[in-house]
């Protein structure tokens, strides 16, 4: 039977490069035997991974904040451009249940927690922002 040397070389390449059966201990031993300072490398590699993961986590948190803001804009429109009167009307509609029971309860809770002076425009805007962001969770 004639041999297929091309396929045999491919098999040899794949087999020699394969590490699927190697345990962490096997890997450590082999590299150390070749003169690699395994612990030093793992320390350096670990630092790269940690720093990268921190970057990813920060990015995810930022994306979630952006998403929450976006969701608020979708529900009530852009609150930044609304006048005080419009904000008050919007808050009244929420408090009266026009946006559902969940948001109504959130609005009522805000009212209960507020004691004393009149609500400022900035506070009102912030309440609506929080209520709509919470609705998107």
């Amino acid at each position, binding site marked *: 039977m004639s*041999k*297929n*040397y*091309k*396929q*045999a*070389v*491919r*098999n*040899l*390449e*794949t*087999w*020699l*490069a*394969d*590490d699927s*059966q*190697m345990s*962490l201990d096997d*890997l*450590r031993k*082999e*590299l150390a035997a*070749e*003169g*690699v300072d*395994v612990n030093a*490398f*793992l320390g*350096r*590699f*670990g630092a*790269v*991974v940690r*720093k*990268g*993961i921190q*970057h*990813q986590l920060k*990015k*995810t948190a930022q994306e979630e904040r952006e998403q929450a803001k976006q969701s608020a804009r979708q529900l009530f429109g852009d609150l930044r451009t609304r006048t005080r009167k419009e904000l008050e009307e919007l808050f009244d509609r929420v408090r009266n249940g026009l946006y559902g029971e969940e948001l109504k309860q959130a609005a009522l809770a805000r009212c209960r927690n507020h004691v004393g002076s009149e609500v400022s425009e900035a506070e009102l805007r912030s309440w609506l922002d929080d209520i709509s962001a919470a609705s998107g969770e």
Partner: protein
Amino acid sequence: MKSDQLEYLKSHQQEVGLKLLRHARWLAATKYGWNGGTKSLPLGKDPEDIVCAVVDDYLNDVRHFNPRHGIEVQLKRALSSKLWALHRRVEAHAVPLEPESDDCAPREYAADGLGVDETVMMEHDWKVLFELFREEPDVKGDEELELVLMAIEDGAEKAPDIADQTGMSVERIYELKKKLRKAAPKVMAKFHKGAETLP
């Protein structure tokens, strides 16, 4: 990058790091012949630099994981690509290699693994590679290694197949594999040096 990919990298970082380093050294030695893959690579790099750069690229969004493929496979491909880019930079700028690296002239290869460029291989060349392994001092005369090479020539692909064909245990096959891996850079250096010296 997805949270499950992050979690995998975090929880398997030692294993992933060592596998990548092993792969980088293997490619550097067999594919490019750079100082046997054990010392410095061209342009003042070393295999550790390349491995760290690859992972850094993914974690800092220079490269992106494809969710359809395994993380390790993608990291190894990226590693291969970085080494290739290093090789291209050496060629493009004619940066001199280390003085002791006479066997390390940059070459163009199409595939990973031993670095065999299938586009220029003649039918006879495939067989020659096995003969070069047999001629290597660490392999020559070793009856067990001869049996392993014969089994692969006959179509065996993995350790259990080779064990079946040779009658040896799978554990012994893995021991013998280490010897062949050790011989591979020298074999490939001879192979790439030129067909005129081949049998």
